């Protein structure tokens, strides 16, 4: 009893207040920018269900309550029920395909009264949990094929289901978990090969196939000549070349048959293959104008002309960064990205200080997902990645997104607060 009460008392002291602070800063920044993005002088009230900022404030309050509830739960709860949570989300992901509401081409929402639940947001949390649970199990080596495939399946099943909605953005988020696998021993070649595949894909779309293949062959031969005494290298390079060339040929096919029209357009716009600023390229162009016109100090709160006069669509959700860039300038962008980076590094540090592999793996999962969201979201608003509709964590308007990140973060905070205790997977 004594130790238990000491634990209870120690609980709030062990909470990583820095993370909590960063969380609060981010949701506050988010709220003000949503306020600016959709500010309507006809509805000056701050709280209520008439405006997005009114709703967001309700969501934030609910999020804080949710965070406290999570902190009050027992650590073992998350470990023990990981599989059950995972199963529930899988069921929800299947259900959403049947009973879900289609919004903007994605069948991603389950209507619950006036509120709409987005199961894919919560799938991130449960997948993270189950992955941590599985990888922290005894005798699990990611370097072994069996374990690797099992881990892949945990990640792959929700991905497939989300893909069917089809919500490409949320699907791709799961790819970020590759960092977790890497941290747990996955060969670095996976990262290198993925990077190479992305590079080759872009290069193939940008340049003539023939020249690309020729230059690859020349490069390959050069490497072979340099390492001609190392048979393995020569062999690897030859295989790599063969795979690359066949990949180049398949890119045209993937591009022509697998990708959807709007996805192709987004990639084309990103690579500058089409410049249609009126229609297809309108969003990104207006978004870039908004951010670029912020200059160093921005136009000031509620003063962004791009924002005020609704030039950027989805201003309060996926393109919320435009408001920040426009009204707070480079100073604001720098601050925000700084806060995110600080949070990411903090999360990595928290993960690394865990004694339990479960907590560590979960911590890396949280960091990876957060990182991917930030990169892709800001990247698309400034035109360096294709437009993929995923929210800016803790900032974009939307209850599901806010709560899923709250849960994601505070489970880690909770696990961390208890890091000294002996927790072993059930």
């Amino acid at each position, binding site marked *: 009893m004594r130790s238990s009460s000491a634990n209870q008392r120690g609980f709030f002291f062990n909470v990583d207040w820095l993370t909590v602070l960063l969380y609060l800063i981010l949701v506050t920044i988010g709220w003000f920018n949503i306020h600016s993005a959709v500010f309507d002088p006809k509805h000056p009230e701050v709280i209520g269900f008439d405006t997005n900022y009114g709703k967001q404030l309700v969501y934030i309050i609910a999020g804080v309550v949710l965070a406290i509830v999570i902190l009050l739960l027992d650590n073992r709860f998350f470990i023990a029920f990981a599989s059950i949570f995972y199963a529930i989300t899988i069921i929800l992901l299947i259900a959403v395909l049947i009973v879900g509401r289609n919004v903007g081409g994605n069948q991603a929402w389950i209507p619950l009264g006036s509120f709409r639940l987005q199961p894919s947001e919560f799938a991130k949390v449960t997948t993270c949990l189950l992955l941590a649970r599985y990888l922290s199990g005894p005798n699990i080596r990611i370097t072994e094929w069996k374990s690797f495939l099992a881990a892949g399946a945990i990640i792959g099943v929700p991905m497939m289901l989300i893909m069917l909605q089809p919500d490409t953005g949320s699907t791709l988020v799961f790819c970020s978990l590759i960092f977790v696998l890497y941290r747990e021993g996955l060969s670095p070649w996976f990262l290198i090969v993925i990077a190479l595949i992305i590079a080759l894909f872009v290069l193939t779309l940008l340049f003539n196939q023939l020249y690309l293949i020729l230059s690859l062959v020349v490069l390959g031969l050069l490497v072979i000549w340099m390492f001609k005494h190392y048979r393995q290298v020569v062999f690897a390079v030859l295989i790599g070349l063969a795979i690359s060339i066949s990949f180049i040929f398949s890119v045209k096919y993937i591009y022509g048959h697998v990708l959807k029209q709007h996805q192709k357009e987004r990639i084309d716009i990103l690579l500058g293959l089409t410049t249609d600023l009126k229609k297809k390229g309108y969003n990104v162009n207006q978004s*870039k*104008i908004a951010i*670029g*016109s912020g200059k160093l100090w921005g136009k000031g709160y509620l003063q962004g002309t791009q924002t*005020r006069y609704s030039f950027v669509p989805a201003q309060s959700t996926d393109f919320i960064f435009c408001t920040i860039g426009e009204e707070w300038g480079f100073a604001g962008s*720098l601050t925000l990205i700084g806060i995110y980076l600080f949070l990411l590094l903090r999360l990595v540090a928290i993960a690394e200080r865990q004694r339990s592999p479960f907590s560590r793996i979960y911590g890396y999962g949280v960091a990876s997902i957060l990182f991917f969201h930030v990169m892709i979201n800001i990247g698309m608003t400034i035109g360096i990645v294709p437009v993929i509709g995923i929210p800016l964590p803790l900032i974009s308007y939307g209850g599901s997104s806010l709560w899923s990140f709250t849960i994601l973060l505070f489970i880690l905070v909770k696990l961390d607060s208890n890091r000294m205790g002996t927790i072993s997977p059930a």
Partner: protein
Amino acid sequence: MNSFFARRYVITGIFVALCLVLLVRLFYMQIMDDKYLLASKSNVVRRYIVYPARGPILDRHGKIMVQNVPVFDITVLPREVKPFDTTLFCKLLGIDKEGFDKRFNKAVKYSPYLQSVFEKQVPLNVWASFQERLPEFPGFDVQRRTMRTYPDSTAAQFLGYIGEVTDRDIEKSGGFYRPGDYIGRSGVERAYEDLLRGQRGVRNVLVDSRNVQKGSFANGAFDTSAVAGERLISSLDSKLQKLGEQLMKNKVGSIVAIEPSTGEILAFVSSPTYDPNIMVEKGKGNVISAMYNDPYSPFLVRPIQAYYSPGSSFKPLDALIALQEGIITPQTTFFCPHYYQAGNHRVGCEHFDGVTDLRKGISQSCNTYFCNVFDRLINAHGPKNTATTYGAWREKVNNFGFGVKLDVDLPHERRGLVPTPLYYDNRFGKNHWRSSSVISLAIGQGELLATPLQMANIECTIANRGFYFKPHLIKAIGDKNVIKKEFTEKHYVGVDSNYFHPVIDGMQDVVDHGTAADSRIPGIVMCGKTGTVQNPHGKNHSVFVGFAPRDNPKIAIAVVVENAGYGASWAAPIASFMVEKYLKDSITRRPSGIDLHRYMNANLLPPTPAQIKAQKQRQDSLRRLMKDTSRKRTDTLEKPRVQLKSAGNNNRRDTMAKLYAARLKRREDAE
């Protein structure tokens, strides 16, 4: 802890590196590159030009000659159009369904988000009934513009007209004008464009992504307000102008009346004229092109652009120069044997005047007298010096504003013609011409050409006894009634004032009991000179120049009626009506019995080429008919004979009209 512990640094490194990529890109976009800022400005700020009201033009008594009236365009913003009662709409505007679709589709094609004009210049009554029901037609609106209007419909050539700028105008103005702006195209509108147009203002308005206005940009810090154009007070007397136009109706010619003591032009009639209002109406294009093809050239500003030989109206000038030179005295006489023998040809004289002195010479318009005077003038330094003496004479004539531009304040004034000695050198050979070669100049014929304005200006000079003010049409500018300095300077012609009296005596005789006796106005002493200008192309032009009253003259006038015959029969009466109207504001019965309305109603228009052609055809068919009839029915010879006579008349008229047409064409070519 874990064999892969070091990998945290790889992951951290990737996080930091990619965040740096974002920041570098943001730094470039937000700090280095200005294009986004410019793009965001052009996104939301719309520059609207605020058009100033163009200055009005008043007559000398403050009566409005040109002003702006509001006109109403119906505009449409297709995006905001919601279903409405199209039948009612079409009925109100007086268009059919097809016309509606055509206009609407045009607007949609232009842009669903931008306002465009649906129907231009709707009449006031249509506007009123439409405005009332406007709320029933969402997306439609009424836009107010201003248009020039001419309450009196007079003085078209003086006022000129405005039109949309062409690409060339824009280029010439160095970008001052913008497409859609209006610019003065002719007349005062053009001459005083800089003053009339005023100053444009700019309004910067914020718009959202759907082009809905959201208030002013930067609280109007960059806005400028429009400054209305200056008000111009014309020197014209609109009553006099109107009378002049009525008198010149169905005649070709012009009237110029000037106030000698100021040079202010009181009447500026160019006939045939047109109603300036048609230049601003809808679909004016057809009307204008029809007017351009009109054989009587209504766009020709005859007072400053038409050339006439001054004829006898030139004689006073001869006399004045000769008196100043001391060639003659008022008492000098010449004997008129009904002609003047110049070398081997004769210049005829209308009358057998016998012994003629200056006064008689002018009042009887004796050709012989003035040929003698001119002969003496040109031979003053011996026949060998003809060219230089002539050159000196020419300069004196130029001093009167003859053969030089008077710089009236209208565009495209023509200078007239007093040939240079060189001209005659080329024509006759150097030193191969004498006074007799150019003797027709003495009676204002030959190569001499003048505009009606120049003729009127000479009368001003005579009325003032030796000087004139630059004739001008705009008396005062703006609210402060600024008068241009150049209009207040006296131009002396180089003849002493005492030499004018004998000439004026002669000119008074002309009206009192000379050639223009029929035009004598009871109670007003008018001095004048008739001219019957030989016209090699057809019937003589009727000319009268003069001023009144004799002492302290108030009005100087020149009237030219083309192809009307004697100066005394048309130009002089018309001038007398003008003078009387101006001086007495009413027209009394004349002792001579001449009647105002006869002159107003007379049609002296020469036939047009089309009429000539029709006449010729009629004449041909008549001739054929006559031949046939004479062959078949010799007993009815009486009738064809009558027709033959009329055909002969037609024939004569025909030739004249042809020549007139040729002259018109030549004149247009010269323009």
